[in-house]
């Protein structure tokens, strides 16, 4: 399976074969032969010879969070063979950017209207949780094509608040 992995904003080619308990992977020319076990869902125990690497993988809005040796890595997986991928970032390539609520909360302000032109980093929606306000910014320049919330709405993590094209 040929994939692209985006880690720390760097895109790398990742060629991976999973065959039962064996994993062979190549990342930018570095080769890994690993033994794979899954002691519980989302926990991947990878042995590289005798080295133990316990990975805890959680799906996030941006891709995956991988906990390994006391460090959390944000990884996005792009699968060129599918239109769908393990990340929402592919939508950026198609010209659409969704502004997603990172946590449950209440919409307190909306800075834009449908049809407005926005620059990357412009404030779009302000969401309040635990008495703190968080301004959601546009990840790209474009035009606001939809606003799905209004002030006072309660939103859940992952809700699409607005879409910029």
């Amino acid at each position: 399976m040929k994939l692209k992995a985006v880690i720390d904003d760097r895109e790398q080619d990742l060629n991976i074969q999973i065959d039962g308990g064996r994993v062979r992977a190549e990342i930018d020319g570095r080769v890994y032969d690993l033994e794979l076990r899954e002691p519980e869902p989302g926990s991947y125990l990878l042995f590289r010879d005798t080295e133990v690497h316990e990975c805890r993988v959680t799906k996030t809005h941006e891709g995956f969070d991988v906990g390994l040796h006391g460090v959390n890595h944000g990884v996005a997986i792009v699968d060129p063979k599918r239109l769908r991928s393990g990340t929402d970032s592919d939508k950026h390539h198609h010209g659409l950017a969704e502004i997603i609520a990172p946590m449950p909360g209440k919409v307190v302000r909306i800075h834009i209207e449908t049809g407005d032109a926005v620059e990357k980093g412009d404030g779009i929606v302000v969401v309040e949780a635990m008495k703190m306000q968080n301004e959601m910014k546009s990840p790209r320049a474009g035009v606001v094509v939809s606003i799905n919330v209004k002030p006072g709405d309660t939103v859940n993590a992952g809700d699409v608040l607005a879409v910029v094209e």
Partner: protein
Amino acid sequence: MFRKVLIANRGEIALRLIRGCRELGIKAVAIYSEADAESLHVRAADEAVCVGPAASNQSYLNIDAVVTAAKSVNAEAVHPGYGFLAENAGFARAVVDAGLTFIGPSAEAMDLMGSKTSARRVAVESGVPIVPGTVDALVSFDEAQKTAEKFGYPVMLKAAAGGGGKGMRLVSGSDELRSAFETAQTEAAAAFGDSALYLEKAVERPRHIEIQIFADTHGNVVHLGERECSIQRRHQKVIEECPSPINDPDLRRRMGEAAVKIGRTVNYTGAGTVEFLLSDVTGEFYFLEMNTRLQVEHPVTELVTGFDLVREQLFVAAGAQLSFTQEDVRWVGHAIECRIYAEDPANNFFPSPGTITYLREPAGPGVRIDSGVANLSEVSIYYDPMIAKLAVWGRTREEAIERLRRALDEYQVAGITTTLPFFRGVVRDEEFIAGRLDTGFIGRFNERRVVVDPPQEHVDIAAIAAAIHYSRHQQPAFVQPGAQVSDGRWKMAGRVEGLRKWRRS
């Protein structure tokens, strides 16, 4: 001793109090809001009473509902924990008026220490130094200038109506006073609708050091030494230690005696904490305020002194004498506590509520966890985002730091963002290791912080693990012709989870 106690709180402190009750054979009654019915503190209790909807002002802060709950289960005493109603003298009165025991000081002592001005008056009466400053608001710039010269620079201008750092200016010399005075006035007017300012002598490189005191109803007042709580963000503590890295027995004795004097002046009973600012430059300390309750950070004192503060609180409230005297108090080793918050340290400690999808807490030598959550717990938007406290003990501060480093690396929480990565950085920071702490620590730490890149191998393996997870969860089981059904329940559970995600997206 009481037979039944109502715990008027939630989260980790409710669990701490339930444990204290259990050890003495006391039945513990939890209260909960509608959002908390499945919370860990309810699951751990003997009985539980719903006191209202999720919003805390309609549940945990609703004095009538809490007192009614206590009466309805025939509890004999109420323990308020910290936060919520713990320092509400009206609540203490309501509990006593209902014929129950309030586990804490008298409402009168809470009233005296609750207001900033009356607490300062108590300190002065007790002969304890306070930060020199004007009592009344400054009437003019001329008065500000004269007062500043009297105290000597640096001075601090503060909004009389203020709080939270608004309208606050540090002035290091007379040439800066005029512009600082004007901006502070403008800020104060904008923030509080009141431009009145007062002036205090500035404490340079202030350490936040507090003394734990304990008093019974028989006139015994003792202190259990200090806790250093200088590492703060948004004026809230995040790391606490006992003893302070200064570890000066003479300073401990002087600060301890000052705290005990204040306790005596207000006829204090139970556990209380007297907070001081200590100048790292001059070595002078000043009374700041008193917290008339058990503190979040009490475990570090327990680890180093060996006393169980909740147990003592229960005995004292039941009318017993303190189980120890000042001479019995010994400080052995060093303890450090980290408050684990559901907050994003990379985004200005912004709250990060959600569901904990995975939790593995550290254990082993010298490790104590006071946690309010379990696997699949919901960290809700309604309450304080602190989910747990990790405290470690070592024979020396060095050993404690090594243990803390190990325990923080063991700690795994998924589904929400926590302050764990921040702490992992702090315990490797040279200034922290050297014990050079003051309230400006986090600001400087964030500036000098060097992000150590993990080894390439770990980064690669993380990417491989993500790819494995991706490949497992992309295809629903029913379109996988080669799928084995005899893989065991865990794998099946994983597939079902994958299927659910597929359907939702």
